[in-house]
């Protein structure tokens, strides 16, 4: 992976990020987009299962779990957590 890419998988526990671009080549990623993982959506890293995979995110208040592998297809801009 390139050094400057920051993906959903790079977020830390409690950190938020807004999706900036999606690598749509994988049909599975396209299905995730139907669930609302599109540009502009804000996600928060909520938790993870044992071993840090899969990861649970909060998307508009709802829990959604993704595997680390698929989380890497979503580039994000981290949001400062100050509220």
């Amino acid at each position: 992976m390139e050094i400057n890419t920051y993906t959903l998988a790079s977020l830390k526990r409690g950190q938020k990020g807004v999706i900036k671009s999606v690598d749509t080549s994988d049909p599975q990623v396209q299905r995730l987009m139907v669930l609302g993982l599109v540009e502009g959506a804000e996600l928060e890293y909520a938790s993870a299962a044992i071993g840090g995979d899969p990861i649970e995110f909060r998307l508009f208040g709802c829990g959604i779990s993704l595997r680390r592998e698929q989380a890497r297809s979503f580039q994000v801009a981290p949001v400062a957590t100050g509220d």
Partner: protein
Amino acid sequence: MTKASEIRIPANRITVKRHADASIAVVGNPNSGKSTLFNRLTGLRQRIGNYPGVTVERHTGTLKLGDKLTELVDLPGTHSLSAHSTEEQIVVDAILGRLQGSDAPDGILAVLDATNLYQGLFLLQQLVDLQLPMVVALTMTDAAEKSGIDIDIDMLSEALGGVRLYRVVATTGAGLGKLRTAITELPDSPPPQRISVWSELTDVAKRLRRLSDDKLNLTECERLLVDGMTDRNATVTAGLNDGFVAELRTMREQLFGDDPPIATEARIRYSWVQETLAKAQRSTPPFQSWRTQVTGFLNRPVPGTVGLFLVMAVVFQAVFAWATPVMNGIDFATGALGAVVSASLGDGAFSSLIADGIIAGVGSVIVFLPQILILFLFIILLEDSGYLARAAYLMDRAMRSVGLSGQSIIPMISSFACAVPGIMATRVIPNRRDRIATILAAPFMTCSARLPVYALLIAAFVPSQRIGFMNLQGLVLFGLYMFGIVMGILTALLIRKTALRGPKPPFALMLPEFRRPNLQTVLIQLLGRVKVFLNRAGTVIFTVAVVVWALAYYPRSDLIGSEVVQQRQAAAYTLSGAELAAQYENIDHLASAAQLEQSWLGRAGHFVEPVFAPLGWDWRVSAAVIAGFPAREVVIAVLGTVYAVGDEADEDTLSGRLKASTWADGRPVFTLPMVIGLLIFYACCLQCAATLAVIRRETNSWGWPVFAWVYMTTIGYVGALLAFQIGSA
């Protein structure tokens, strides 16, 4: 009889208009509270059937208001009209009126989860554009309030083409009155305005519609443009002119270029959703409810996983411990009933049929109803509280290491109740290899039909001792469940490494918040399960009990009968009083054992005995096992019948009779190694015709069910052989 009962006809034969005034489709996201609302609206006026040609359950119910009868069809949960599974395709076909034997619905009841407007509105904008009369039930409004979500209903209604929204709390019933009226009046209401979020698509779709000579509607054309020529769409366009498909291809290229159409659709529609939410929803910092705190704690990796195992241990302990008093009661009642019938009808074939065949056979299965009730209660509670999804998430990594995904956990857990619904539940798994591996692993899970066999043998041969907070019997039962899990996992692993080698399946799962299950919904579901079980006990098991009784009773040997008379006379010369009575009893028992041995069942048992002799089974156990191949729970009924007429009949309970049973030389048949072997055999062997049929249906081949049967039976036999031979050595 009420009027509602008149419409209870097989679902596949329902032609809606004749029986109800209107038919309304209930559509919404998974976990949106759709089924709870449906149960609330229809109560017990429900039917479960199947959609023609597929194995998706069709839930219909009626809503009666005044003299109007409205049929509600609870469609499977879906996120989009872009169908990617059989269930999602059913939703699309149902609302477009393309299902065989039913018209398009007269209206739509859309269910929108107030705590998840984001995904809900995505589906809703597609539904509004269908141009059917529509009403929206905004569910979970109480939970939304607690999470600090404030929704501007008027703004939302305006954004959705003027559709009416009703706030409801399905768990308490608040707001349902107005919703009922709205649903009943729905067929006469005008449809909402099209919102055409994606005007480019709509414009092209209109052109496409003209090309189809208006045979397709606008939504069908939009779906064709986005989804392309899927298998289902190919049948939709089959009757159209030749140029249509070529033109469709050109239009898609112009609209999407190289971008995947589904991704484009998601981007455009969600950008509208994001704008709409910015106007219609205000969020304040959420109130820390007990739910969020519980969720937060259970979300942490280690407490979550430990919690999952604790939950499972408690369930199994409950199944065994809580049910015991009730089971003892039922056992006593059937025993007493049999004795009364025997005494009042006297000797003879008819008395034996009633007491030994029907009462003993059916009673020995009914006795397990309490355990099955408790197990189903737990599974339903776990599902309705949202915990099953969390279990899938927690177990994903472990499941993946054996080549499955977390989604396999739900079919697996359901299979603890019964492999048939469990195997049906594999339809949520998108990957075919993953699905088949799960289907083959599922029958290893300890189903409720295995439970009676386990329970009987454990109660008879495992001492009831306390070990820590658990009982040794509960612990052995837990061990057998674990054994099934391990065997299932090994099977999945084996099959994914050999016949079904392939890339690791993908995984994404919505994790609903914990919610308190609604009592009414839980009871309705529980009642449905009990009905299925009792139906089986009342039909299949009843029939088998009678047939097995006949096989065990006939042919009667006159020779044995006359010998009994002679021996009784001989005894009367030499003995008297209590000794004589005891001798009479002894003679009778020996005689009935001899009668049984030369009966059809006895002969069959003897015939197969050499096959099972290395496992330590006598001809009676062999006969019971043979009789149990169509449905494994039957084995209890057979043992009940076989031992009721054998020489152990002076024991009050079946377990007592098993303990007393001996070989000809007086050695006990049921030794510990033999019992362990028998348990292993039952843990593995696929003795269930229904499971084989559903595997055949779900894999669409005879190969997999045949493989599963041979594979599981072989493992069971070898396992029992090893246990007996090593244990007895």
